[in-house]
């Protein structure tokens, strides 16, 4: 009887052990949900920074005046990453400029694609394949009136039980003609990681 109990228990152990073993499972997740995998700069931070900065810019009274009857032309200068991590700051500026563009309040010129545009125009004029009357003209582009630029900095502190990271993101809008900073805002993120005594 005891043997039977032992065999059954061992069998069950094996079944459960197999069932609970570390299996890698692939799932699709919600790309916009809050992600807390680790303390480094993550998708939630990127989305939060982009959303807050766009909202703040679109709500500011100065921008209300600037965009009253016109859609000002902007260009994004790169964001300076002053944190201790590698962060793709172009991804943050991409999100911000996409949101601003989609709001219908601003227009953008893309400085990252100037060479590609020049190549295309050269081909149209010098390639001998495009009808000269239908080629896009040189020297007709519209210059940016405003420049968007910013900084991303961090303060990291940790002891043996706890890590704390603080990000500060500053964004400014400069009038290129007058050199005046028309708008500025900053947003902060604090993330902490602490050891929990409860395992599950």
């Amino acid at each position, binding site marked *: 009887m005891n043997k039977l109990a032992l065999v059954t228990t061992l069998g069950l152990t094996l079944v459960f052990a197999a*069932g609970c073993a570390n299996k890698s499972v692939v799932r699709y997740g919600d790309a916009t949900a809050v992600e807390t995998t680790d303390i480094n700069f993550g998708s939630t931070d990127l989305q939060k920074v982009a959303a807050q900065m766009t909202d703040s810019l*679109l*709500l500011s009274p100065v921008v209300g005046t600037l965009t009253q009857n016109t859609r000002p032309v902007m260009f994004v200068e790169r964001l300076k990453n002053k944190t201790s991590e590698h962060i793709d700051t172009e991804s943050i500026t991409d999100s911000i400029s996409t949101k601003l563009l*989609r709001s219908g309040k601003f227009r953008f010129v893309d400085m990252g694609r100037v060479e590609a545009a020049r190549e295309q125009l050269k081909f149209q004029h010098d390639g001998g394949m495009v009808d000269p009357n239908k080629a896009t003209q040189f020297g007709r582009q519209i210059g940016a009136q405003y420049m968007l630029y910013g900084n991303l900095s961090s303060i990291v502190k940790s002891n043996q039980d706890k890590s704390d990271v603080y990000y500060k993101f500053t964004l400014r809008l400069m009038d290129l003609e007058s050199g005046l900073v028309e708008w500025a805002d900053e947003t902060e993120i604090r993330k902490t990681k602490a050891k929990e005594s409860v395992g599950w």
Partner: protein
Amino acid sequence: MLTSKNTLCTRQKITGSLAVILVSAIVIAGCANKKPPVTAGTGTSAMTQGDDFSKHLEVHNTDLAKRLFISDVKSRKSNDLLEINLTLTSRYEKSQKLQYHFNWFDEAGFVIEAGKTPWVPLELHGKQSTTLRGLAPNINVSTFSVYVREIPEKAYKY
């Protein structure tokens, strides 16, 4: 002879109990977190500017509703865009890790920027009341809804 049989019996009993404990431990440790977390929360149905928010409140998680309630939803037009102020109040004495998100619809009720509005993390301290801001992504938005839920973290037990 009888004594040794008894000893054997006791040993088997001990082994049996140990095996049972082992199985229980494995089941508890390994399989306990297989259940998906509760992600239902509380929010509003689609409402327009000037609507009475109390008529649009929707509570999908009664446990969360005991700790948290939406005390006010205000909206206005700023720079042609719909701006929302949502006041969340905690009924609980400890901090809560939450996330909130807005949905935007045009006049015909069609969703705008579907799946692009991020869930924003929020730490609500004990008995705190906080105001969250949402801004419509473009000028076509006339209706909105908001949803608040917990951040599913295994370590958080209430």
